[in-house]
């Protein structure tokens, strides 16, 4: 039913080919999961991709068209998505407007809301996991680190999310985190869209804390109860939280409600950080400019 025409990417556990779905003629991406590499049988990332994509069905989440075995390899047939948000941010030839940013944020938040509504944490949101379809739709992709929301007594690993997009509770080594870690990542992506450069580019895990707190202030028990109970808290350099004015200077193109949205997505205390519903219902998406029509974004 499908052809594999051109290799377009190789990851740790999979090779990605461009191909065609013979019945419809549509372009597809075939993610061929290498099986021999993983000494413990099927790779955990493959299991997660399969497990969660099978349950999700939303215009802003990558669509898993089919799965099949061939020559002892697991093949995921996914919709073809030619580019991603990282490419757009980096390519200075591409000019985009605040209305475009609003459109991308709206679609990203809708996709992640659908993931959270199905009680799934994505845990690796970053610009190059936000793919863009030929008609301009943002699609949340790469569920290789996803997992179901834990039960009350489950412990989670904090070693998730690509460093620059990693929430402070993860940097502190939290084991009982929530959807809030995904919202933090989207907040950093929002900042990056407005700045067009990475917002919190730490060189390593320690430096990531340094960079994060220098930009947004070192959290205290006052605004984040029990943050001081994290191991290593006492060694932190204390930085003041930026005033609204400083944020305005940093994000000159941002409106007041854009800053408010960003501030609440980058709220230090995960218990009070906005969830995707609060983000979607925020003033930012109600005020002008209206989000661009995805098909019109060049």
């Amino acid at each position, binding site marked *: 039913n499908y052809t594999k025409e051109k290799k377009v990417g190789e990851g740790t556990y999979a090779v990605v080919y461009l191909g065609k779905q013979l019945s419809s003629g549509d372009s597809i991406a075939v993610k061929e999961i290498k099986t021999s590499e993983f000494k413990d049988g*099927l790779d955990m990332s493959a*299991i997660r991709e399969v497990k969660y994509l*099978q349950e999700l069905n939303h215009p802003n989440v990558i669509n898993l068209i089919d799965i099949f075995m061939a020559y002892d390899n697991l093949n995921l047939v996914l919709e073809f998505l030619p580019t991603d948000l990282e490419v757009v941010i980096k390519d200075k030839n591409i000019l985009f407007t605040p209305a475009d940013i609003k459109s991308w944020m709206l679609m990203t938040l809708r996709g992640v809301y659908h993931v959270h509504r199905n009680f799934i944490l994505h845990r690796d949101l970053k610009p190059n996991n936000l793919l863009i379809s030929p008609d301009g739709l943002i699609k949340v992709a790469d569920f290789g680190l996803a997992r*179901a929301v834990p039960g009350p007594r489950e412990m989670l690993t904090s070693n998730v999310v690509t460093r620059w997009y990693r929430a402070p509770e993860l940097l502190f080594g939290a084991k009982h985190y929530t959807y809030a870690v995904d919202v933090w990542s989207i907040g950093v992506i929002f900042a990056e869209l407005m700045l067009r450069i990475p917002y919190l580019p730490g060189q390593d895990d320690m430096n990531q804390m340094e960079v994060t707190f220098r930009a947004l202030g070192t959290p205290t028990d006052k605004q984040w109860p029990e943050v001081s109970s994290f191991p290593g808290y006492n060694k932190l350099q204390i930085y003041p939280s930026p005033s609204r004015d400083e944020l305005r200077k940093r994000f000159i193109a941002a409106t007041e409600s854009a800053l408010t949205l960003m501030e609440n997505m980058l709220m230090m205390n995960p218990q009070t950080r906005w969830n995707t519903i609060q983000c979607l219902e925020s003033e930012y998406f109600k005020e002008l400019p209206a989000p661009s029509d995805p098909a019109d974004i060049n």
Partner: protein
Amino acid sequence: YRHSSQFRMWSFTEKNLREKRKKTNERAIGTINEKLRKFIEDNKSSLTEEELQTLRVKASPLSMEEELQLINFYSKKVQVIAQHLNLPTEVIATSITFFRRFFLDNSVMEFDPKNLVHTTIFLACKSENYFISVDSFAKKAKSNREAILKYEFKLVESLKFSLLNHHPYKPLHGFFLDIQTILYGKVDLKYMGQIYDRCKKKITDALLTDIVYLFTPPQITLAIISMEDEQLISRYLELKFGKDISNNTDDQENGVNKEVKEVNKEEEGGVPEKVDDKHEPQNDIELNKLLTIISQCVDLLE
């Protein structure tokens, strides 16, 4: 739930469940008879009459019922071994579910169920984020990595790649909370705690049956709680979904609304607009239908 792979791929009526098993069994019988015929054909000269007779009598394939007995027997083994490995309740539940689903499309005459026991538990551990390396798993389960990994692919394929399961444990917790709300102050909390534990055990036993294909997790949960305390459940559901009681409140509310509407009419002197009732909690559960489903589920469980 209707979007879930569990509903889309793994919910059946008793009739099509039986047909599915019949088909699997007949396909296996066909293969075996073909092999037997070929074997006798190839060895006709060397086989003695007595051996031929033995083949005819002994080498008879299993019937569907016999297959199901074996599958039930080994499902229990999966549960016991997984419990012995101290795995969390949901991992044990997923192991049993994977095992039983595998043998819906595969016959025990094609795959010896003994060879799938460890593989289903191992895959359940990975799928439920309870990762154990195959080597340490092999040591604990007194098996070896080749045997464990041999059928992993085949298992994932037979599961139609649907790994996310909705077990009745979370609904048990959910109803445990909602009963406290609806019957607030009318239930003894210590008693509720005892019921909770007994129901949890019963749910694991229920997973060893076909109930999971025939009913949704919440229906199974309500059935199991009602087996513990039928009165508690009927009172709870009556209050929660009973139409007549809410009709009273509707009447009562309508009564109130009627007055409000009357007032509106006088004030505005116009035709009262229809007060849309979208804000009233939508009660789209047919209580009698739900009670019927629950009692069917109870009968099957018993």
